[in-house]
């Protein structure tokens, strides 16, 4: 089965609201996680990363939370804007798998004006 997966395929939020995108992983050897944003017709764009020795990391308007107990990762976007509309992927690197990124299935975030 797939190690990295997403709970919801589509998330629709009102502009200005906060968004939370979730991701589950199953491999305990996963020790580095990245959130990517992909706009239509473009390549994945790095948003934020977190290592397994952390449980929270903040960027500009984004926060990633890592719960290793339940193997769950989330991306929180504050004050969601229309420009945030995209597909969001979580990806993992496992300590025993070199530098290979394993991507989850993606969540489409739709921001309503």
């Amino acid at each position, binding site marked *: 089965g797939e190690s990295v997966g997403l709970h919801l395929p589509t998330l629709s939020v009102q502009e200005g609201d906060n968004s939370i995108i979730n991701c589950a992983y199953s491999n305990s050897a996963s020790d580095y996680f990245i959130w990517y944003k992909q706009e239509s017709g*473009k390549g*994945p764009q*790095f948003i934020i990363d977190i290592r397994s020795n952390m449980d929270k990391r903040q960027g500009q308007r984004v926060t990633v939370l890592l719960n290793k107990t339940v193997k769950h990762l989330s991306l929180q976007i504050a004050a969601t804007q229309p420009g945030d509309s995209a597909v969001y992927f979580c*990806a993992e690197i496992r300590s025993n798998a070199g*530098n*290979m990124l394993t991507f989850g299935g993606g969540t489409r975030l739709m921001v309503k004006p």
Partner: protein
Amino acid sequence: EPEVTQTPSHQVTQMGQEVILRCVPISNHLYFYWYRQILGQKVEFLVSFYNNEISEKSEIFDDQFSVERPDGSNFTLKIRSTKLEDSAMYFCASGTGRMTEAFFGQGTRLTVV
């Protein structure tokens, strides 16, 4: 801001033909990758390249695929005899080290007819 560039942006080829997808990674990066994304699906790892050799490859990366770094700036993916199921977006990515984020190019859309 440095970026990964890929050419061409769109390639149409007949089944059985050879194609070469080209990438110029970010100049000080040492790790290079190819990923692909079939329309509407998640991003899948193909191969990673470091120190002038393949460091990892997935099951997708069979004998029809090869990679090369012919000079100090280019990184290419060759598909020897294309099949219809090779139709996808192919993304090149590069990174500075292990367990660090990979920066993606805009992709080459390969259409096999």
